[in-house]
């Protein structure tokens, strides 16, 4: 079986050129064709000798996949569905989503990192698929590379399906390719990785790259958060915040907390006070997110008035707070909705 070229780092490309006994400089040429000139075939790499291209073609293929489906929202958001055959644990096809979200002065692409998710958050549609596999670095990057609007994208957020820091090696590899001079050459300040708080992953992420970090909070109270997010049993929020407090992050590196506001549940005065206490001394912001209801959930969206009141209370405590715009609701924008509907059947569960 041929190996994939797309998704390899410069170091891996050097190993490849060594293996094929090609000149050392060919690795950089390959990276340039892959990530700057967006080649789709090995034959396009015309500054490589014909014999080298032929040799490469016998053992490698590009493996860049176009989207299997696209849905367009009236607000301009477009959701792309990609096959993830490499991650499939069964013969059934598996899919991941990428959402392209254009705004007046920027355009964001939301990337998936896993097929399904292991984390089992109560409010999340992706979790209902169970966990079906990890995406490779190539499959993560393919969502950007093969996007029709790729050249319009200004920001990348790892906030699609899956927990990025539960798939840390491919995620870090993809960020290396995105931010290296030999890769896409993107500023790390244009990339945000979102996590529910996997502490070892956060530690490595902070040490090894300069991208922004977003942490899902959703409740500052241990007991309440445990019921919303089982990960709290293992990685309590206070330990995540301690780690961030100990980390000496440069000013240009942003830490934000994501907070879905559930009607009648997590926006009381007590929540405001506890959030302010927890975040004291940390340079960060809070993004308030409207909850888009999912099937069989006991949770409810907060009203606009509740959202604004909560925002104002947090601001009054000196916390930089914004309410995120909801986008693409008419195309099943909530994470995982589109791909879950596309599943032929749920993961093979037998217990």
């Amino acid at each position, binding site marked *: 079986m041929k190996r994939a070229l797309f998704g390899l780092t410069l170091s891996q490309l050097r190993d490849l050129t060594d293996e094929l006994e090609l000149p050392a400089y060919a690795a950089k040429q390959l990276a340039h064709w892959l990530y700057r000139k967006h080649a789709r075939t090995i034959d396009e790499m015309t500054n490589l000798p014909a014999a080298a291209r032929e040799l490469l073609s016998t053992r490698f293929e590009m493996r860049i996949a176009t989207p299997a489906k696209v849905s367009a929202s009236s607000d301009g958001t477009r959701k792309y569905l990609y096959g993830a055959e490499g991650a499939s644990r069964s013969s059934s096809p598996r899919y991941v989503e990428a959402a392209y979200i254009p705004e007046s002065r920027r355009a964001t692409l939301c990337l998936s990192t896993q097929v399904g998710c*292991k984390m*089992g958050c109560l409010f999340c549609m992706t979790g*209902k698929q*169970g*966990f079906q596999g990890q995406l490779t670095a190539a499959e993560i990057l393919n969502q950007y590379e093969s996007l029709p609007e790729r050249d319009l994208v200004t920001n990348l957020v790892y906030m699609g399906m899956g927990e990025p820091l539960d798939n840390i090696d491919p995620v870090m590899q993809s960020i290396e390719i995105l931010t290296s001079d030999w890769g896409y050459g993107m500023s790390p300040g244009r990339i945000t990785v979102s996590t529910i708080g996997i502490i070892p992953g956060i530690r490595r992420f902070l040490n090894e790259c300069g991208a922004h970090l977003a942490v899902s909070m959703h409740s500052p109270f241990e007991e309440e958060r*445990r*019921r919303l997010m*089982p990960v709290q049993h293992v990685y309590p929020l206070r330990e995540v915040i301690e780690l961030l407090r100990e980390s000496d992050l440069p000013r240009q590196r942003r830490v934000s907390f994501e907070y879905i506001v559930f009607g009648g549940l997590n926006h009381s005065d007590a929540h405001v006070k506890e959030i302010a206490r927890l975040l004291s001394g940390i340079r960060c912001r809070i993004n308030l997110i409207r909850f888009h209801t999912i099937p069989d959930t006991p949770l409810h969206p907060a009203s606009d008035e509740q959202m604004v009141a909560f925002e104002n209370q947090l601001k009054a405590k000196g916390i930089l707070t914004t309410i995120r715009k909801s986008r693409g609701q008419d195309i099943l924008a909530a994470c995982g909705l589109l791909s879950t509907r596309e599943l032929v059947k749920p993961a093979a569960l037998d217990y």
Partner: protein
Amino acid sequence: MPESSHESGKETRYRVRVESQEEIADGVFYLKTDRPFDFLPGQCVALAIRQDEQARYYSIASGRSETRIGILYDLVPEGKLTPELARLGSGDELLMSDPFGSFVDGEEVAVWIATGTGIAPFLSIARSLPSTAVARTKMLIHGSRTLERFYFREELRDLIQERFVCCCSQCDGNEADAQARGSGFYAGRLTEWLRGAVAEGTLAAGPRYFLCGAAGMVVEVRDLLISAGIPFEDILSEIYF
């Protein structure tokens, strides 16, 4: 001497010695080591063989009064730790963190639901509480594919008595017939049994529900319980990841 590794997020500061290891079912092992600390039944530890590798998390399966730490685990052939862990024998050493986690239960009325090796925290709690309290307040529903995968079944039957239900999804006809003669055996999927129990009123709002196992099971069972009217505040989940 304490050693340190922060790779896992949990410091594996104890070098413990293996006392014994047994393959109790195909690819499932029960490991016993020194016990360097006290713990709350239901808590986890991080394990590693070497300092420079990422530790993995496992629930403690032994009781609080036992002199050894017991770990029940599945061999994951492509995994980074368990193939090597499975080769350890008496006298070998490994690294262990302090206990951590808040998936703990006391003597209140509770329903425990587990699949496979997700039984481990409940085993620890059942072994630690007074036996009269376990028999009086706990119900355990364990789902597995085959009979051999109901680990420590006899011990759990003694502790929990008639409120211990084994749901066997792949038992063949003979096994099912033989087991069905005894109480507490169900030949079918755990979720099928739960739906029946909800319909009959065996399971209802009131007790706390503790779920432990793979993500798919936990999410499916949690949805099932919520749709049966059990408040989500009363459902606690531990997912193996």
